[in-house]
């Protein structure tokens, strides 16, 4: 396995969302994954001090490239928006989520290049069916899970990166896969407190609730 750059929030979110035994993502709708990927990209850009947000709006503060091939196209789109027309976080989530699948694909390819996972296309009757991502080197996935467990099971002050990742995991319901029912019940107040600490995380959570409600309603009509 090659030495690699520190993993971004997007990459760590994908590792958390992966059932490392089955090599497949936990059951999340495509729209939810797109929204989470968009949120992760916005979080990564915030941590790199390229964008910022207040209670009303999200805006570019430094349009210079980060050097990250996944984040820079997102930043470029945001930097082209008219300065005098600010937009809330929810607007940018929707805009960036339109490229959600591409963001996830690029991040997965990067994880593959790092030697952390590999891609398997399982053919069913000569047609590509399920895609799996077996873990090749599990140190990173263990590290991110241990770190996030440390955040939610202790009362240390979380680093901003971990606040954001916790918020994403919570918004997508990933903790029910990481913790037992009893552990989750005990940790929920702490998880909710940490998840609340970032406004992008709050916006992702709100969007995911709306997405899941829309899906449930559409299912009910069938």
């Amino acid at each position: 396995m090659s030495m690699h750059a520190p993993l971004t929030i997007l990459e760590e979110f994908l590792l958390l969302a992966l059932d490392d035994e089955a090599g497949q993502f936990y059951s999340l709708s495509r729209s939810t994954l797109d929204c989470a990927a968009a949120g992760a990209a916005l979080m990564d850009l915030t941590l790199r001090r390229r964008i910022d947000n207040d209670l009303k709006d999200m805006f570019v503060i430094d349009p210079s490239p980060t050097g990250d091939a996944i984040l820079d196209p997102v930043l470029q789109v945001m930097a082209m928006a008219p300065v005098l027309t600010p937009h809330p976080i929810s607007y940018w989530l929707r805009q960036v989520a339109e490229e959600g699948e591409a963001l996830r694909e690029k991040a997965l390819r990067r994880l593959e290049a790092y030697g952390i996972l590999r891609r398997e296309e399982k053919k069913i009757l000569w047609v590509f069916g399920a895609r799996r991502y077996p873990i090749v080197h599990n140190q990173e996935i263990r590290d991110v899970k241990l770190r996030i467990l440390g955040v939610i099971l202790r009362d240390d002050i979380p680093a901003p990166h971990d606040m954001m990742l916790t918020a994403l995991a919570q918004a997508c319901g990933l903790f029910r896969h990481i913790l037992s029912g009893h552990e989750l019940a005990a940790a929920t107040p702490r998880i909710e407190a940490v998840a609340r600490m970032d406004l992008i995380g709050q916006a992702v959570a709100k969007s995911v609730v709306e997405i899941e409600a829309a899906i449930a309603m559409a299912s009910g009509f069938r």
Partner: protein
Amino acid sequence: MQTARVQPFDMNATEIMNVAGRFDGGNAEDILNDAKLRMQMGARKLVLDCMGLNYLTAGGMHAMADIAKEVRARQGVFAVCNLRGQPKSMFDACGFEQIIPSYGNQAEAVAQIAA
């Protein structure tokens, strides 16, 4: 020749950091580095006085969290005071009182963290 007398840093004294105007992603690193420098010089009780602060963003909040984390790693105490208006709304919306105590004025903050 007179030799300089170096005053030892009083680690029991509360260090007051005043932040005014904006605290956002643009100046967050400078403010964080200022706090780190004070801690490197021995400060263990730090109060961020926000009397003059009129605008706070997520970037500023992240720097506050980093300062709080750094202080705690040195077994110190960190608090903010005089939050009002938009900065207070931002602080409250993110529930930051869970990790950083906030007081109404500097005297109260200094008294509480000295206790």
